């Protein structure tokens, strides 16, 4: 800090340390005790066999081997989670981007109102969303099947969308698209507002079409927001729990398991702490690596 420059020799002293650390102490203690130490313990527990009570037996990498080589449900969870992530990082992001472009560039009279509506699923509890969508998908009395019958697609209405192993993940991902695109739209819209208007004006004069303007001005203009949205979406997707737990609890069978649900079941229902922590440890490391890669790409884009 500049202001400290001339006083540094005097103030950079024990007295200063005492003041600083006494103000920081509560935050540091809470952080260490409830976040930092548990995060490290997870790595240790993943190397042991432990039922949650009693002593931990050190077993080395056995949990990781079990997870990777002889655990079908883990692979189902991982596969589902990757499907979830890929859909979440594409469809809602693109809808949000196009919709934001239309709102900002179209100069809609009620642009703010539309954003307010799109954002609505963000503020309600995911359990409310789960209740609504469970009802919509209900095989016997759900509005979706009612609608299909009404428009003459009755043959598809026999499917219980959440009860069928082939459709359950798609049905859940649709809900996530519905939840997520409004967030993307609001973030992109606010990024687009800070793009220089003159760029568009001169593009108009040059006779560039709206599509060209979108690709050449808008998209580069929201580049920063785009990387942030994609990064956040990826992190959220690998942590997804609420919607899946509230809608299907992983069913039918284990066909809609995702990583977080798998960890929860192993850790808190079957009391296999070693296996559960091995899964989270691996996911955390993977997320760290992916985030780093993402940040590196983002930095490079900043010319």
């Amino acid at each position, binding site marked *: 800090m500049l*202001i400290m420059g001339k006083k540094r020799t005097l*103030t*950079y002293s024990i007295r200063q*340390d005492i003041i*600083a*650390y006494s*103000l*920081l102490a*509560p935050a540091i203690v*809470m*952080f260490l005790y*409830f*976040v*930092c*130490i*548990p995060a490290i313990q*997870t790595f240790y527990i993943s190397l042991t066999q432990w039922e*949650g009570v009693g002593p931990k037996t050190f077993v080395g990498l056995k949990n990781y081997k079990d997870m990777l080589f002889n655990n079908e449900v883990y692979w189902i969870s991982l596969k589902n989670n990757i499907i979830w992530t890929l859909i979440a990082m594409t469809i809602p992001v693109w809808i949000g981007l196009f919709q934001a472009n239309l*709102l900002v560039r*179209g100069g*809609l009279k009620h642009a703010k109102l*539309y*954003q307010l*509506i*799109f954002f*609505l*699923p963000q503020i*309600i*509890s*995911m*359990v409310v969303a*789960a209740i609504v*969508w469970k*009802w*919509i998908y209900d095989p016997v*009395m*759900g*509005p979706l099947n*009612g609608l299909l019958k009404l428009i003459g697609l009755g043959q598809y209405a026999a499917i219980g969308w959440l009860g069928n192993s082939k459709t359950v993940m798609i049905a859940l991902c649709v809900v996530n698209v*519905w939840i997520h695109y409004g*967030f993307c739209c*609001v*973030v992109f819209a*606010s990024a687009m507002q800070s793009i220089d208007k003159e760029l568009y004006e001169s593009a108009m004069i040059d006779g560039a079409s*709206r599509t060209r303007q979108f690709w050449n001005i808008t998209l580069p203009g929201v580049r920063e927001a785009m990387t*942030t949205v994609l990064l*956040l979406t990826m*992190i959220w997707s690998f*942590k997804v*729990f*609420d919607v899946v*737990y*509230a809608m299907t609890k992983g069913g039918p069978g284990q066909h809609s398991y995702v990583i977080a649900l798998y*960890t929860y079941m192993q850790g*808190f229902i079957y009391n296999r702490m070693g296996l*559960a922590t091995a899964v989270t*440890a691996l996911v*955390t490391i993977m*997320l*760290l690596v992916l985030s780093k890669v993402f940040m590196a790409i983002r930095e490079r884009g900043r010319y």
Partner: protein
Amino acid sequence: MKEKIGFRIYANMSAIFFAAITLIPFVFLVFTSLRSMPDIVANGPLAWPAKWVFGNYPKAWDMGNFAVYYKNSIITATVTVICVLVLSLLGAHVFSFLEFHGKSFVFSLIMFGLLIPFQQIMIPLFHTLRGLKLLNTLWALILPQVAMQIPFGVLLMRGFMRDLPSSIMESARLDGANELQTLFYIVIPLVRPALVALLIFTAMSSWNNFMLPTIMVQKDAMRTVPVGLNYFKDQHFTDFPMMSAAASIIAFPIVVVYLIFQKKMMQGMTVGSIKG
């Protein structure tokens, strides 16, 4: 000119279409909550209510334990928000304006918390809280939420504090104000917008937190709103009007708050992505 009008119409149509997609499930929710189960069985899910039934609301309120859930959620969110704001302000102030030994180490240690997903800590955390005999209490929700929010809170507030002109801080020091006085009388009034955003962000993540209370709380008397609603849903999964009424009871207050503070809420909830 013609092209412009065409684009406008297209933009309007698209916006209306997506607004409808977002709103229709909520409309279904409210309509279903105002019908009776026999009516739905007889006339199908898409029919206009044969008779408006308002009795589902008081019935759902009585059958569920919602007053208790609301009380728990309000206490949890309030205490969490206060602790997060105080600790983030103190932390950010120290990191912005003071020089001390180990500063960059401590700062990177705390910032490391931004990268730790909740799943990474939940299993040891559960056993720590069990050891402290805090399971099935609201502390099991408050303490971890505060701790997990500190890194983001400190980062956000520090970002704003560092933009303050240094002359202000200097003159406060010359007047003999100590750190707490400077923070309270000078810094806080200047970073109020950021503080409001942090408040909203923390309050909403606490209010809607689902996984933490699912793990830490088994007793009905300690359930928060989302977990209580999920429990109610599992109890009454065949009674759609009742479930919808319960969900509406839970959604309604938050929607009202949202409509009152719309702009601040949107800013607060996207603050992570804009600043991050």
